[in-house]
């Protein structure tokens, strides 16, 4: 079982991203359980979504407390909350940022960091900082646990209210192509 936690801000589509990723994983034959954490959802407030997937049916319908991978689709939300809380040793961070990994404050037990200037890409595709599908491409590149083609197929099944399917497909592909991966020397947690 692989557990993912997605951090973002209200309005950026973190919950929608978890649903698209779940659909893509099902297309690859996985079993999934995606749960949005809930509060009084407000635009701009920190938002969390959980996703677990496995080759076997998943029975537990609970939140995630020890993720293998953390996806942070907003460059500043880590200032407001601890995005590394409970993270397993040897895990992967997929971070929306244009900063260098050497400038980031990272916990010692992280194995891999994937960075993507998702806001820059979003401004060129959508003219708005909507980073969710870009960061799914980054997740695919960083972990290899889902294929870009499956993400695109999942997008084709998604009902986009205001942004076009074509733009989101470009977003996933650019997220995949423009993600840089840094391996870290893991220290014991």
């Amino acid at each position, binding site marked *: 079982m692989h557990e993912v936690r997605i951090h973002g801000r209200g309005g950026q589509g973190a919950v929608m991203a*978890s649903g698209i990723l779940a659909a893509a994983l099902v297309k690859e*034959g996985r079993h999934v359980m995606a749960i949005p954490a809930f509060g009084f959802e407000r635009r701009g407030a920190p938002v969390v979504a959980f996703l677990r997937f496995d080759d076997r049916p998943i029975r537990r319908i*609970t939140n995630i407390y020890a993720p293998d991978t953390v996806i942070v689709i907003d460059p500043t939300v880590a200032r407001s909350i601890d995005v590394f809380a409970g993270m397993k040793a040897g895990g992967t961070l997929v971070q929306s940022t244009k900063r260098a990994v050497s400038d980031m404050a990272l916990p010692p037990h992280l194995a891999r960091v994937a960075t993507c200037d998702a806001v820059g890409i979003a401004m060129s595709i959508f003219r708005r900082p909507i980073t969710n599908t870009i960061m799914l491409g980054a997740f695919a590149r960083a972990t290899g646990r889902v294929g870009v083609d499956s993400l695109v197929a999942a997008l084709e099944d998604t009902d986009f209210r205001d942004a076009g399917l074509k733009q989101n497909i470009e977003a996933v592909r650019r997220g995949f192509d423009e993600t840089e991966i840094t391996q870290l020397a893991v220290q014991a947690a």
Partner: protein
Amino acid sequence: MSQAAALSRDSRTLVIDGNEAAAWGAALSRPDVVAVYPITPQSSLVEYLAKFIAEGKMDAELMDVEGEHSVLSVLHGACLAGGRTYSATSAQGLAYMFEPYFRTPGLRLPMVVSLVTRDSVTPCCVWGGQQDAMTVKEVGWIQMYCETQQEICDSIPIAYKVAEHADVMLPVNVCHDGNYLSYGVARVDLPEQEVVDAFLGEKNVNWHACLDPERPMAVDPLTGGAGGAGPSMFVRYRKGQCAGMSAALDVIVAAHEDWGRRTGRYWSPLIEEYRMEDAEVALVTIGSMTGAAKDAVDEARLDGRRVGLVKIKTFRPFPAKAIAAALSKVKAIGVVDRAVNFGWNCGPVFQEVLAALYALPVRVPLVSFIGGLAGADITPEHFARSIADTIRLAAGEQVSSPVWLNEFDK
């Protein structure tokens, strides 16, 4: 990669949340009239229904009325006119619906209404819990609680089959947990429309009373009182309701069996027994908490603990005989509730299980666990503690009851 990799785009496998699964279950059952008023965490369910109707996926009259009292009142009219009816509500919406809700079973109206269960205010909260459904357990509706998104989708056609059965003729609440199931996304295999059509058969919703201007009839005349034929007639009505409830147990079993034959999905109709064969202690669960509890049972089994689990699907009518039989051999029982019984200072399911066990020749100790209130999570770790407490109880130790599972969450 498993067989699912071969799925084509027009396949009937969806990756959806529990509210959309309920909307699909309703759509596949072809109701004639759907009346709705939105309330958290049910809102997206009725939005899906409106969308399905707008897109022509569902051929039903959508009545977007001004509140839940009107929702159920207009459905009374539609159902009395012979229509198949559907709605969904939660918590305060159910409270506002209560006046017609209270009348529905007495009118013998075979409706299906999803309860997207939510804790009740006050303290103010808008999140999951089963306090709403448990508060109305004595009104006379059948109640079935779902464990997964797939079970929600499948249980709605099953509910119509039960409700409309000539021996039952009672309304059914298909309950699914707010938040964890309503918004939780998983894979759902949609049954084919032809399969559901064949399962439900020719629509004959309301054969016993039908509003028809050509053939006027009085419905629900004044009865009861202390003179003449009133008292005996009132007793006849009440006994009829009780007979319908009692008959529902067998009908629920048969309907689930029939559904299983047609879809390959055999859901446990009344209760599910999990690893109970040689169990020395048992947990009793209800609803979406069950998956995490099964994971905890497996963990305890790896440690050599002989633990089993009994999940309740049908809560009304209460499957007392099945519960007593399933729990007849264990040394202690822990019942996990997602609601509070204020009158007995325990969980409501606990109180029901306690009553059912009176039929056993031996007295089995029980402990009440209450968790998952107002959206709180019940994790495998919470269940591991519940199992440990129940084992201590079996060993003759005192365990103070109820145990509030989330009391010390941080």
